[in-house]
């Protein structure tokens, strides 16, 4: 513990193989989840005889899981703050139903229905946030109530009837693709829109990473070894390009929802890492009393988190409704559990203070690939449930085990 470091910029000895191994061991916890995803993808790719990574199937996995991934972003933020939200499935269903009523019965244009739906989601979140943050009722209770209340409201406003026949524009968000007619698959080898997007993403990624590393070097901050940095970057670039290729050779190119999701992932990662708001979430989740005694308005943050979750749940409801072209009384059932599972598989801590957006997304993808892969193999729903349950248990068990080992190392 008491390593005497007089000067942080001491010249470091050249790295050895042993250093590299211990560095990788230290990173294992962070990269473990990505490795797990890769292992699962490889496993099912082999088991399904290559069907998993067929272009159209990849596109399908993304669209199928988009609303869960979206919910997982808001959910991991709430979990980092030490709360939980059990109501998101019902809220998504309620907003979907309201949007259906708006476009069908009240003749709202699709965009007005979208805006109004997000506002409804925000109000629902404000309602729940009020009870959690300002009245002080545990989020588990408030959102358990919300799960029932908004499921009930969904059924009431729909009169237990399903709404179908949504306008074309509305359905684009959940089921549409980017410029589908521009490069028809019949005449083009690849969908060049997708290729362009992929290349832009890679360029942006490499530029920001290099600039960040240069800044850290200028500030003489200790950084990861160059070899690791290059390997990591090359790996991520390879994944993006691989995904780009698969989508570009699929029937329709880039799903619109993937673009929405990508923007939200990047945006919310930045919020969690670099904004005052995000940093305060980690602070209050890590030690609520210390955060309060540091002058952080923890109630306001709790409130805002639920408002945010409400808006994301609304967006998920719109995507889901658009994709199915239907708003029904049973929509969004069990979404909350998938989103919570995604956050925890992705490394969020049950006690709060730990968790990342990218981890939750990876956790959600693990669940999505498991679902899809097992369905391709013809595994029944019963066995699927069993396996998903065990994955969740083992992932959190691994986390608890890791933490115990770390705290024992302190003694």
């Amino acid at each position: 513990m008491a390593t005497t470091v007089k000067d942080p910029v001491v010249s470091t000895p050249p790295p050895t193989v042993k250093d590299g191994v211990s560095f990788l061991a230290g990173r294992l916890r962070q990269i473990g989840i990505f490795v797990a995803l890769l292992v699962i993808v490889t496993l099912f790719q082999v088991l399904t005889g290559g069907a998993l990574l067929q272009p159209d199937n990849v596109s399908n996995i993304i669209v199928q899981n988009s609303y869960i991934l979206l919910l997982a972003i808001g959910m991991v933020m709430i979990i980092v703050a030490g709360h939980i939200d059990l109501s998101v499935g019902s809220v998504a269903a309620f907003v979907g139903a309201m949007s259906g009523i708006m476009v069908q019965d009240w003749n709202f244009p699709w965009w007005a229905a979208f805006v109004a739906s997000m506002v409804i989601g925000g109000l629902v979140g404000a309602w729940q946030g009020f009870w959690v943050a300002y009245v002080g009722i545990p989020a588990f209770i408030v959102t358990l109530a919300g799960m029932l209340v908004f499921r009930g409201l969904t059924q009431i406003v729909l009169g237990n009837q399903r709404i179908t026949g949504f306008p074309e524009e509305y359905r684009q968000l959940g089921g549409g693709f980017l410029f589908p007619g521009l490069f028809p698959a019949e005449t083009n080898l690849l969908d060049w829109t997708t290729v362009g997007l992929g290349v832009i993403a890679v360029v942006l990624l490499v530029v920001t990473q290099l600039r960040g590393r240069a800044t850290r070097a200028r500030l003489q901050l200790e950084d990861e070894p160059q070899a690791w940095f290059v390997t990591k970057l090359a790996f991520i670039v390879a994944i993006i390009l691989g995904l780009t290729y698969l989508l570009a050779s699929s029937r329709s190119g880039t799903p619109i929802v993937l673009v929405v999701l990508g923007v939200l992932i990047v945006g919310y990662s930045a919020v969690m890492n670099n904004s005052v708001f995000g940093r305060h979430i980690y602070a209050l989740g890590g030690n609520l009393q210390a955060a309060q005694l540091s002058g952080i308005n923890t109630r306001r943050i709790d409130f805002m988190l639920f408002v945010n979750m409400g808006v994301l749940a609304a967006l998920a409801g719109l995507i889901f409704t658009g994709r199915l072209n239907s708003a029904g009384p049973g929509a969004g059932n069990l979404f909350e559990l998938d989103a919570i599972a995604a956050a925890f598989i992705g490394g969020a801590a049950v006690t709060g203070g730990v968790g990342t957006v990218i981890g939750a997304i990876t956790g959600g993808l693990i669940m999505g690939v498991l679902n899809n892969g097992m369905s391709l193999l013809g595994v029944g729903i019963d066995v699927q449930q069993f396996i998903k349950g065990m994955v969740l248990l083992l992932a959190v068990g691994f986390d608890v085990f890791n933490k115990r080992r770390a705290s024992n190392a302190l003694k």
Partner: protein
Amino acid sequence: MAENILRMRRITKTFPGVKALQDVNLDVVRGEVHAICGENGAGKSTLMKVLSGVYPHGTYDGDIEFEGSIAEFRDIRDSERAGVVIIHQELALSPFLSVAENIFLGNEREKRGFINWNETNVEAAKLLRRVGLDLNPVVRARDIGVGKQQLVEIAKALSKNVKLLILDEPTAALNDEDSAHLLGLVKGLREEGITCIIISHKLNEIREIADSVTILRDGRTIETLSLHDGSVTEERIIRGMVGRDMESRYPDRTPSIGEEVLRVEDWTVHHPQESTRVIVDAANLSVRAGEVVGVAGLMGAGRTELAMSIFGRSYGSNITGTLYKNGTPITAKTVGDAIRHGIAYATEDRKRYGLNLIDDIKRNISGAALGKLAKRGWVDGGRETVVAGDYRRSMNIKAPSVTSITGKLSGGNQQKVVLSKWMFSDPDVLILDEPTRGIDVGAKYEIYTIINRLAGEGKAVIVISSELPELLGICDRIYTLAEGRITAEVPIAEATPELLMHYMTKEKD
């Protein structure tokens, strides 16, 4: 007669980095009331935890001889079977269970796993009568007062056939009437042949009921005095508690004291849940720029409560009184307000209230003033790292980098992170609550140097401490606090440990 029920021999207990007890000896005669005295942190509670098996055999060095044979208690149940029962300062009754259930908790009157309610309640009523409580045993523990809860704890101990009863600060939370009743009960137990060890700060109480007193200081036994002939005065006990070693453990400082920065007038604070219980009673104090002011008080005197209530009302209810900053009255209803008014409070319990232990050094340092590093809500991470690096150097925080997790640092380095955090919030007044608790001697010197530097920069510093030598070594002026009241204001030139302890133990007239 003088047969010893308990002999503790050369007990040594070490925590990481701190030797809490060193070669402590304790002899307790059967059937006596034996008091243990010492400043906070002298090792009294640790010694009792060793005795009662909270720290099991094997985690300490030395021998415990109980009733003539060596005792190797593995846990509390083990020591209770032998007849050693400890009643902790924080009462451990389960609030929603009945008094009878609490008395027999873990020791149920049962038959094949089913509770015999009649026997439970009848036996409980008998035990309650023994401690002088006329109470229906089926009422819930939370529905009776603190004084009665204390008596229920004793009844619980009696149900376990106690031979040696340990009471840790039993009257700290009681009013005079309840205290008198409790002390009378302890005398009654002595008549029944039960031996008592009582830890207390109230020296008049000790002189009233104890047969002998053992004094601990800095984890060592200083002396055991017999109180039978009445020749031992309170002053004599105090002298043993505070000792006389005041070497150059404190860096020199030439104070340059300026204008008054903070003044607290007529400050009264009530308990957060029991809004009629007075915790801080019409306190008046002030601190000037460049001045280090001490607040001395024993456990339960209301030191932390006073500080936290000033710091944005983060403790208490029904707070009345006025704060003046640079001569003008201010209101600081939230911690945020207090920080904006230039007040900082570094907690006595840095792990629970001071740090996010799972996060790194730089994010802890920036935690109270993240806004200073942000533009339109976005944090400049580079500048944050630079700022944290500066503090790491100037405060000599020993860690591989500013991204080290604070939970892995030693106590002294954690404290430096807490101090850095508050220095970064750029306060005019720093309230430091037990700034050297749980820190080894070398790091203490560094903390004192930092305090001197802060005062030298013109900050007003209030130091709360239960270590009198520390206050005498670093302060310009010392307030004493007893039972929530400021009992004296002593300039450093006149301050002696004896005088301070006299005011710290001064009870309400």
